């Protein structure tokens, strides 16, 4: 059989490429992605973009409405709200990312192991997870932070620990479902060992709901950090934080609504973007949408 060098078979990256191709069809998701990217860029470039020092107090300029000089006005200490927003974003977004990372590293292997091995392993791990889940998440985070100290790192740890069990449960559920699929049995019949089955088959098919769930975790983390700051944990004054700024803005709602609206708006925009992104990802990762070429040509015989 004369063959020129046959094309390399696409690996896992290929499916990501295909998924990426599907993505632009989902308009809301594209908008979400763009927004999120802009928000992240703005936060990352805060030192360059921010017109003022976020902690610089200038009592003569306090509670000024939005103007050319202060795009989003000033707060009760005369600090530029826009600059505080940008720097505050750094905190919120990095918390989001790190919490996601924590939850992933803790929750996914737990869920996979539980789902795949079943039996006593499953029982043990899930009882552990249940223990965590009996606590209201925010309260648990508060308790942990109270125990460890109110720094931002502890907040991230606490939030991660709180989100991990939820993720683990979800991953376990998906794993259980996928484990029973015929293609897993087929792989076993070929002689595949547990390692190959977990990575090539289980993980690959569980990754889509995981990614979607991670976007939820991200959004929840951003909101949770805001809540914790609101309550007084996490970022300490005078560091900017969306949550803390919201908390301080309450008193001035009547006089200077922009103080409150800015961080609230930022959180809303962030969470919405992430949610839309998650929707788009969920659709894009559905293999039934993947099409490598226009039509399936006939076989040889």
């Amino acid at each position, binding site marked *: 059989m004369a063959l020129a060098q046959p094309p390399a078979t696409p690996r896992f990256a290929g499916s990501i490429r295909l998924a990426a191709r599907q993505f632009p069809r989902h308009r809301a998701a594209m908008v979400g992605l763009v927004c999120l990217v802009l928000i992240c860029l703005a936060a990352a470039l805060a030192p360059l973009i921010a017109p003022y020092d976020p902690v610089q107090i200038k009592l003569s300029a306090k509670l000024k409405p939005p103007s050319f000089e202060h795009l989003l006005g000033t707060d009760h200490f005369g600090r530029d709200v826009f600059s505080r927003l940008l720097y505050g974003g750094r905190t919120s977004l990095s918390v989001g990312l790190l919490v996601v990372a924590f939850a992933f590293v803790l929750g996914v292997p737990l869920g996979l192991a539980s789902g795949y091995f079943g039996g006593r392993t499953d029982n043990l791990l899930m009882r552990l997870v249940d223990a965590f889940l009996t606590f209201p998440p925010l309260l648990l985070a508060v308790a942990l932070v109270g125990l460890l100290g109110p720094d931002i790192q502890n907040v991230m740890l606490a939030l991660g620990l709180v989100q991990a069990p939820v993720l683990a449960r979800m991953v376990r559920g998906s794993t259980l479902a996928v484990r029973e699929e015929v293609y897993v049995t087929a792989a076993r019949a070929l002689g595949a060992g547990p390692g190959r089955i977990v990575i090539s088959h289980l993980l690959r098919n569980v990754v889509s709901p995981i990614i979607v769930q991670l976007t939820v975790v991200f959004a929840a983390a951003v909101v949770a950090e805001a809540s914790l700051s609101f309550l007084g944990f996490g970022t300490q004054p005078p560091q900017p934080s969306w949550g803390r700024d919201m908390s301080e803005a309450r008193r001035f709602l009547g006089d200077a609504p922009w103080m409150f609206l800015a961080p609230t708006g930022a959180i809303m925009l962030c969470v919405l973007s992430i949610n839309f992104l998650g929707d788009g990802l969920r659709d894009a990762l559905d293999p039934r949408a993947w099409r490598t070429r226009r*039509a*399936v040509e*006939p*076989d040889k*015989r």
Partner: protein
Amino acid sequence: MALLAIRNLRTRFATDRGTVRAVDGVSFDLAEGEVLGLVGESGSGKSVTALSVMRLVPEPPGQVTADSMSFDGIDLLRLSEAQAREVRGASMAMVFQDPMRSLNPVLSIGRQLVEVLQRHQKLDRPAARRRAIELLEMVGIPLAEKRLAAYPHQFSGGMRQRVMIAIALSCNPRLLIADEATTALDVTIQAQIVDLVKRLTRERGTSVIWISHDLGVVANLCDRVNVMYAGRIVESAPIRDLFHRPSHGYTLGLLGSTPRIDGPALRRLSPIEGLPPNLIDPLPLCPFLPRCRVSVAACRERAPERRDLGREHWASCFAELNQRTP
């Protein structure tokens, strides 16, 4: 006058790959008391034809048009949704392949039967209950009164299909459409159900459209057969003529692909090579041409017309076929 008369039915679906011509110019008549077989494989359009007749095709994305489609004097195309619902169940009924999907799993069988009876026959509950028990007995379900309270999952596949038949026949429809009704059943259960349908429809004079890809069941049950391919009827014949004088390349191919338990044990089947047809952009030639073994020169030049073969037998095929099947 024919009970059902269809002329040039076309059903299309708008998809993101183009317009799928699921049914592409189907015309046939169905007489009172006749059992008509609609034979073909996936993509032949047989199920969509039935759904179009029943006005069950969602429009959009579907679009059902025809020169005429009349049932018992009623113009089916002009019916509003409400009117169609009246006709469905009362005059026309359909039984599907998977009874588990057609029955509501959280309602008891009795409840589902009674609902249909109350709606179409306007019976009160006690009368409807009595009738429901009668119907279950008619389809051969033992201990009918007790089984009224049972749920679909408590029945076996064959029993569920009997219940579906009971529901379908409950309002004495003039037309029963069975879409692969026995395909999912074991062969011994299939024999029971086919027997039941034969008996019931003969007793009541119901016309039947029996949709199947199983030529054996069709040979047992039907008076006439329309063979469909790519949304069109390619051959139509009385039952014996179809098997003794198959006159279309596809019919021949189907017969050759079908394994049998009678006759000599052939070691090899004669499959139809290739893949099912493309319903989006058909060429103006015979849709079966790419897979046909008996094509002639004319097939590559123009679309085949209907050739009358006498005795109500016609086929859209240029090849002069008229052989006994092997």
